[in-house]
């Protein structure tokens, strides 16, 4: 069975997010980049399934050469090989389009992504990829099992969960619960260096949207402290001042 896992790199979750003075870009100076946490979940589930079903796990990334350290980390965790599409990602459509071009040629049975990247939080790559490839897609999937040519997934819905059955091939976005991320071991780190990492050039693609300006959220005003012996004052303020109750 051929698995494809889409990975992207994002700022470490403890990063203080700042932007360049002209507000046109994220300020990456001194920032540590990690594999998007949801992509790591997707990768781990693919590896677990490969261990029982056999096959190969390929990771794919749309990004410049700077992402290769994280691609090697994915290989160290256990992916067999990697593809990097050599271009700066602009929006979800662009990323999905580039991956679809490669995936159509190679033919995969299961394509996994994270449910969203924690930088742009759009969550659209799995759905757009499904549409571009004419495949079913499941967003925010908390479980994935495969039996023959049928996959059973659980996905989050408003106010609960839904069990979805789909034919292979399909695309799904991984959410917490699908697997517990693995840490690379020494052997993994050693073998990662020699695993194949193919670089391909991007295909021509229309630009539909772009992020033109960034800003930080407005700082909260001073926190009003209330005496723990006068809790009634909180209720009063929430009603009269904050109009929240």
């Amino acid at each position, binding site marked *: 069975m051929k698995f494809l896992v889409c990975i992207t790199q994002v*700022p470490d*979750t*403890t990063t*203080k*997010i700042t932007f360049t003075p002209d507000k046109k870009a994220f300020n990456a100076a001194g920032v540590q980049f990690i594999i998007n*946490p949801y992509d790591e979940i997707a990768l781990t589930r693919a590896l677990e399934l490969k261990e029982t079903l056999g096959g190969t796990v390929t990771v794919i990334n749309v990004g410049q050469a700077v992402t290769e350290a994280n691609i090697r980390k994915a290989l160290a965790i256990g992916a067999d090989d990697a593809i990097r599409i050599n271009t700066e990602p602009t*929006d*979800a*459509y662009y990323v*999905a389009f580039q991956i679809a071009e490669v995936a159509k040629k190679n033919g995969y049975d299961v394509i996994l992504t994270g449910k969203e990247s924690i930088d742009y*939080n759009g969550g*659209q790559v*799995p*759905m*757009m990829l*499904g*549409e*571009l490839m*004419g495949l*079913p*897609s*499941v967003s925010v999937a908390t479980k994935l099992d495969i039996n023959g040519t049928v996959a059973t997934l659980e996905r*989050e*819905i*408003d*106010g*609960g*969960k*839904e*069990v*979805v*059955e789909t034919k292979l091939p*399909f695309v799904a976005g991984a959410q*917490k619960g699908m697997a517990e991320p693995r840490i690379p071991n020494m052997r993994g780190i050693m073998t990662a260096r020699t695993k194949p990492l193919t670089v391909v050039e991007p295909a021509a693609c*229309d630009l*539909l*949207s*772009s*992020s*033109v*300006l*960034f*800003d*930080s*959220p407005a700082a*909260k005003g001073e*926190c009003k*402290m*209330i*005496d*723990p012996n006068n*809790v*009634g004052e*909180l*209720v009063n303020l*929430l*009603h009269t001042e*904050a109009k*929240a*109750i």
Partner: protein
Amino acid sequence: MSVLIFAENWDGKFKKSTYEAISYGAELAKQAGGSVTAVVVGNVSDEDMKALGKYGAQKVLSVKNDKLNAMNPSAYASAIAQASQKESAKIIVISYTYSGRSVAGRVAVRMKAGLVAGATALPSSTSPFTIRKKCFSGKGLTDVVVSSDVKVVGLTPNSYKVNTADGSASIESFTPTFSDADFASTSKETKKTSGKIPLTEADIVVSAGRGLKGPENWGMVEQLAELLGAATACSKPVADVGWRPHHEHVGQTGITIGPNLYIAIGISGAIQHLAGVSSSKVIVVINNDKEAPFFKAANYGICGDAFEVVPKLIEEVKKFKSAH
């Protein structure tokens, strides 16, 4: 310039997020002088569909098909895309709920439309078409310019007010065509989190963390939530050790919420937790450590022992509720 809104329903009923999306779409159409059509997929009563007129919909395209009773991303996207072609819609508004997230990207690809995945406001400019959304899990904001002819706006629930006026929408039955590929995946079963208010839709959320020491102490959290008509949430470690179910975990790696009021009890306010709740309109923090970072992100704070403060708060809320 016509606007199409996907009016989502749950077992035949609309919710606040549906009305928000219609109010939003109606305002866009008003600014540009265009028509407002809602597309409804599933079995909703005529009365409820007509009532969408109150929020600004002029017409409802009603798609009824037994195969569409459960949400299916590909088939729903087909229906929405065909409805937008029929209406020559230039803007498609989809509330960014779980289902909305599942269809928006597919609709965008079909229409070759740029998508704003999680808009939090009306466009700041219509030429170029620019809309603000959150990024970096709430730690940043970005202006997204959509340059395609047709545009899809995924509207974050709880971020636009519901507008009401007199009005009744006309209903037109609509029969899109589907391909076999639209039904390659099927819904087998839904498991509802029983009786509770879904976290993403709640106006008020009462949340607690490791400061509560153990799952046996959540009774007061649930009681406070019930009194306020609130949903309950928790911090990550609390869900990780199984004190609370995972679907209550809010933050960077959990659910992102933006309620009117967020009450945090015994939660330190780590940056990953704040990422999921910082867009709450009013934040109340109850913590016995005056240095807890959460106070810096709060509007109101009580520095004290949760086991003393929360029972008092419950009594005060009871008094308030009986007086109002």
